[in-house]
């Protein structure tokens, strides 16, 4: 090779070299992307599993609304006590 007069055509080796370099880099980038995506899926699934079946209430439970019938009953109860006092 080093005793020739003209420059040899070695472009095929050059193309092969650059193609392999880019393919290896692309495969590695793809592997990072795929592994990240799979781990995110695992994370979501594990977080779902980690949630308790009966969620614990952190805020105070809502107060039951007084129904008109119930308040009326209370009123009658009050009147009963008043009447019994008068007796």
């Amino acid at each position, binding site marked *: 090779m080093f005793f020739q007069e003209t420059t040899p055509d070695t472009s095929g*080796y050059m193309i092969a070299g650059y193609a392999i370099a880019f393919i290896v880099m692309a495969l590695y980038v793809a592997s990072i992307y795929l592994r990240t995506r799979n781990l995110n899926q695992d*994370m979501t699934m594990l977080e779902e599993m980690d949630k308790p079946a009966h969620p614990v209430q952190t805020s105070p439970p809502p107060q039951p609304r007084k129904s008109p019938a119930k308040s009326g009953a209370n009123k009658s109860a009050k009147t009963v006590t008043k009447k019994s006092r008068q007796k």
Partner: protein
Amino acid sequence: MQPKPVALKVLDVASIILLAISTYLALVFAPTELVMGDVQRVFYFHIGTAWTALLGFILAAVFSVVYLVRKDLKWDRLQVAAIEVSLVFFLITIVLGSIWARPAWNTWWTWDPRLTTAAVTELIYVAYFMLRQGIDDPDRRARFGAVYALIGGLSAPITFFAIRLFRTIHPVVIGGTNPEADGGFSMTADMRVAFFFALFAFTVVFIDLFWNRIRLGDLQDKVEQLKLKVSM
């Protein structure tokens, strides 16, 4: 899922642009070497990937020392990331060197000191991942990995200095000459531009991949911890 930081997104784009410019400089801008022809152009990526890979192996050895001192698994994740990216880059270095050797030395491979030390370095780090796969306990795995990476890190300077210390046919392009080298050449000004730009571009690409790999390691760690929590 944590969103990607803006700086990392910018680095991703910058890496692609720099790699494209570096490819243009290597394939179009740099002149054709008269004796070897176009195959000499693989030299720019060959050195670019070799430089970052060897730097990564040495960085990993430094992270190992920090892990052994502080016992913080964060340093273990940094070490794994540095070694994985370096392993990929060094594979490219070896393959490109072999492709260059075929027309230059008339063989794909020869057991020259540089080629041998490079192959040994690559195999040391392949074995590193095999070792880690075999250990389940995270602290034990990190401790074994750190000691291994620290000792393995010695192979990086040995590989770098192999062409300066031993009798070899591998050319010395930076910082010296080798009278017994086969395929050596002196760089023109345009070749230097392509060469130094490739070094810069691959350094940025390495940092980008390294950062992405660290994020992957953090995510792996979170998933492992969550698995333990769920299984208890």
